[in-house]
């Protein structure tokens, strides 16, 4: 078991008004799974992803990651986990402006214990997403789809166990979106755990399991039959 959430509760305190965002979530994800977390906006799916991704701490409940209880981890420990074992892909790419593609991909290595071979690792990651010929471009000189692929390369460069993708196709046209999804499929096929957060069923159907959340509670957790799955192709742009 890679991820094991037990009765996770998250409350936000907005000047005395307490909002219950997660109301006792139990969820287990095995290594190598491809899971989509679905739900309407305000359902708590982003908060759940942030909690699983160690960007946020639960108010109560226990979170075992790779067999370890994460309760006693301090902020620096969490930063190290985010760096070494988790990769994030965001809807809005979040690349550094005025910076080359390869420097963007090398960024996580800067905060890692890996001291050498940064450029080579970044190059390998960029080749894996089909952008080996764009390494010296500025991040604002490439298309949206390419930006998201750079973001995926950045998420991969430290060789993490889990890849989180938060609406990865939300800002993309269908062609670029298709390419991004096929890359995620491929990464999962190679054994990496992929957790997808989306409100779009066509995106969610790429996954092998769909967890639906509403009002801070999981209302369904279903396997997707192989025949129902959507497969995307790389469409060159």
């Amino acid at each position, binding site marked *: 078991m890679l991820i094991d959430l037990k009765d996770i509760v998250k409350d936000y305190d907005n000047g005395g008004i307490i909002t219950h965002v997660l109301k006792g979530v139990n969820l287990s994800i095995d290594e190598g799974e491809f899971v989509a977390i679905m739900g309407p906006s305000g359902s708590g799916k982003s908060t759940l992803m942030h909690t699983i991704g160690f960007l946020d701490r639960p108010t109560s409940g226990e979170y075992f990651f790779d067999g370890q209880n994460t309760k006693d981890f301090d902020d620096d420990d969490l930063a*190290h986990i*985010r*760096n070494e074992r988790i990769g*994030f892909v965001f809807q809005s790419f*979040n690349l550094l402006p005025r*910076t080359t593609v390869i420097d963007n991909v090398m960024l996580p290595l800067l905060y890692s214990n890996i001291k050498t071979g940064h450029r080579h690792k970044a190059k390998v990651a960029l080749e894996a997403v089909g952008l080996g010929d764009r390494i010296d471009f500025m991040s604002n000189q490439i298309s949206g789809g390419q930006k998201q692929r750079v973001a995926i390369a950045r998420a991969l460069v430290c060789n993490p166990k889990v890849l989180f993708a938060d609406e990865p196709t939300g800002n993309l046209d269908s062609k670029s979106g298709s390419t991004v999804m096929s890359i995620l499929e491929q990464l999962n096929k190679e054994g990496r755990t992929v957790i997808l957060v989306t409100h779009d069923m066509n995106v969610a159907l790429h996954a092998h399991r769909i967890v639906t959340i509403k009002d801070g509670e999981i209302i369904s957790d279903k396997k997707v039959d192989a025949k129902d799955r959507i497969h995307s192709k790389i469409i060159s742009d």
Partner: protein
Amino acid sequence: MNSFFLNIERTIKNLLSRKGRSFLTVLGIVIGVSGVIIIISLGAGAQTLVLGQITKLGSNIVGVLPGKSNEKGPPAAVFGVQVKTLVLADANAIKDKNKVPHATAVASFVRGNVTVISGRQSVDTSFTATDGSYPQVQNVEMDHGSFFTNEESQAGANVIVLGYDVYQALFPNGGDMGAIVKLKSPNNDIGSIPFRVIGVQKKLGTVAFQNQDDQVFIPFSIGQRQLLGINYIQFIRIKVDNADNLPSTMEDIKNVLRSQHRITDPNNDDFSVRDLADAIKILTSITDALRMFLGLMAGISLVVGGIGIMNIMLVTVSERTREIGLRKSIGATSKQIRNQFLLEAVVLTFAGGIIGIVVGVLISYILALGVRYFGYDWSFIISPLSIILAVLFSVITGVIFGLYPALKAAKLDPIVALRYE
């Protein structure tokens, strides 16, 4: 260590990607640092200029002025108060080798205004009436001719030595030694007295705010009696053989004058004995204080520059909130974020310091050239200490004023930062 340099390299790259912003950020530091450098350089240049001019007048000189003064302040005679207690007998007593053994030359002085006439040319200038021993007391260089002798001055001979500017004004086409000029004093109406030109002084320029070339020298007695019509001495200058004998000679002179004036209590002294070192000390302390004050002003501009850096760093932090969130989400610790922004501030201020030094040295040099153009013996001095201080100060400014924005960046919550629009 290696990753430290890597971080610096990355920071520089990062800052260079925002050239305009970075330059404006450091402008305050550049101005502050170059201000400090320029002020310290100008101060040192002015000090050496003034000291150089004083020593040009001659070294190991003791001056005697009439009137009492305390050790620190100037004597009353400096302010134009006429004190008549010093007379020729006093000067002659100082000349006594048994009483003042280390005095090698003694010159008495009176000064006044005079009109010098040659044919149709006339010049209003000041005259110095002194002894033939004047060239032994002070450095005198003659353009041509010679200074008058002790015999000539004692006899009251009608001979005159012209300052360079006076000579130029009276004899625009050049004139031979031996020409006759007439002196007219505004103090009495005995008419004009003819003098024979026997020498012209070399061009000296301005020393201690007085044009040394706009004056004439005549023998002491004729100047005192006939031009001014007085019987006292305005001041005496004594040349001492060796700097080590200055204090003892000053004591000797005081004792001589006390016995001349029948003074038993030193508190009742009606004269002041000073040496040039005193004057230099007073002058140096004044210029030092001035430099400190100006340096402080420049230092304040450095602090203002630092506040400018803090301002823009704060803007930068809020502009780059998403970037900070991203960096945290991919594994940067709060400490690493803090260090990144702190390093940016320090690199910026350090670069500003270096640019400031270059600009400051350049401007100081141009100013030195400019002052030299106007004929002053100005030296271009850059003290290494001022450079070290400037760099140190700018880096410290970077740390102090960069810390708050950096801490603010480090404290950002990654989720909030990522959502920030």
